[in-house]
């Protein structure tokens, strides 16, 4: 994986995904190692993100790397009209690797073609967010002991949720059975369902969360955005059906864990946080180890 950019989850093979997860496990045991102290990591966030950016910066810092970059383009020459191409070419001269989030789809792929250094895509518009997928896979593997043959429920906005699409695609390599819970308007796109079928896997669709709770090993919650509904009344009707409350978890299997890519708004009530099955904050922590693994392997140190 040395010098290889990670723009889409499929840029890395299944074996390379596993290698990253294994390496992340090592970093979890020992997160502070100064193996990247001769390197400069650039974090270019053209769009706000607290979690992903700080997670990458923490990952890099704990490995001894120096971090440069910006967290929003307002303070840079992008304001003066500088193109993405020029920005990337310039920053590539100042760093050994670029972590980038940008509002336009395809921006990371383009950056990887003009950059002299590898690019890690931290989110390109509504397209890919491969490091989220990897940390989701790490979290699943860690809590279930395996990625194979699991029953996984996805709840909420399955139509627009890029983390959902990406994770479904990645999990299709592991004989997963999918349980899809969403309002009619926000069902998983048919292209993604076709992908599941092509892999000879099963998916089941539901409109109520309560039905899937006893069946699954992982409950992956997502936020339903008001903006997706042209009729605000429709939104009000629908939103409370996709809220997870602690009382709903009585029938859950003991090994079941609740994941959420965060930020969480109201779709998981606070009373769930103290339930040992709530895993979403640890999930975010796992992001640091996975990102350490990516930085270390792409920079050729591990």
């Amino acid at each position, binding site marked *: 994986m040395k010098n290889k950019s990670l723009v889409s989850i499929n840029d890395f093979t299944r074996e390379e995904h596993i290698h990253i997860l294994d390496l992340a496990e090592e970093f979890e045991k020992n997160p502070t190692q100064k193996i990247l102290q001769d390197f400069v990591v650039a974090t270019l966030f053209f769009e706000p993100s607290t979690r992903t950016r700080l997670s990458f910066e923490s990952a890099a810092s704990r490995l001894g790397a120096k971090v440069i970059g910006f967290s929003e383009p307002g303070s840079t020459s992008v304001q003066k009209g500088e193109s*993405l*191409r020029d920005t990337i070419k310039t920053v590539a001269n100042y760093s050994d690797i670029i972590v980038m989030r940008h509002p336009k789809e395809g921006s990371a792929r*383009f950056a990887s073609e003009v950059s002299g250094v590898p690019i890690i895509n931290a989110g390109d518009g509504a397209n890919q967010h491969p490091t989220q997928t990897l940390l989701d896979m790490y979290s699943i593997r860690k809590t279930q002991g395996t990625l194979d043959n699991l029953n996984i429920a996805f709840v909420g906005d399955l139509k627009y949720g890029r983390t959902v699409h990406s994770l479904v695609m990645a999990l299709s390599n592991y004989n997963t059975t999918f349980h899809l819970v969403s309002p009619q308007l926000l069902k998983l796109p048919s292209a993604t369902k076709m992908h599941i079928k092509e892999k000879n896997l099963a998916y089941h669709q539901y409109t109520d969360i309560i039905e899937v709770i006893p069946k699954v090993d992982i409950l992956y919650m997502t936020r339903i955005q008001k903006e997706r509904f042209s009729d605000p009344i429709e939104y009000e009707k629908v939103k409370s059906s996709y809220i997870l409350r602690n009382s709903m978890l009585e029938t859950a299997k003991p090994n079941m864990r609740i994941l959420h890519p965060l930020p969480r708004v109201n779709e998981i009530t606070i009373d769930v946080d103290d339930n040992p099955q709530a895993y979403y904050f640890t999930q975010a922590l796992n992001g640091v180890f996975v990102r350490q693994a990516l930085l270390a392997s792409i920079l050729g140190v591990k």
Partner: protein
Amino acid sequence: MNNNETRKELKVSAIENGTVIDHIPAKSVFQVIRILNLTEVSDQILFGTNLDSQKMGKKGIIKVSNKFFEPDDINKIALVAPTATLIVIKNFKVVIKKNVEVPDHVEKIVKCFNPNCITNHESVPTQFTVIDKEELKLQCHYCEKITARDTISFV
């Protein structure tokens, strides 16, 4: 050889050496000219449109003297003229005659349908993989979204 055959052969072989593109849907002739960059070509070009055709109702035809195209270039026109026939003429004789085929990749000529794609905001030539030749579905190399038949527009 009877008169009908002679006439047919002469119509197609009116150029000594070069390329004929026949059976172009009449409404696509000018697009084909643009796709093949024929405005930059200095050789003799004849074209006709709205010609009667038994096969197609109305068709267009383009004849370019002394020019031979790479299959990759010609196949681009399959996006707007899937019924087109490529005919290569040497010494007044037809040496190749075949249908155009939708290519596997399309570069530079098609616009990405996604307004939020980087190709619509930076100077990046577009690149697409044709994931469905029948239905003409083009997947953008950058934003990974699909531009479908009815939304195909040219740069």
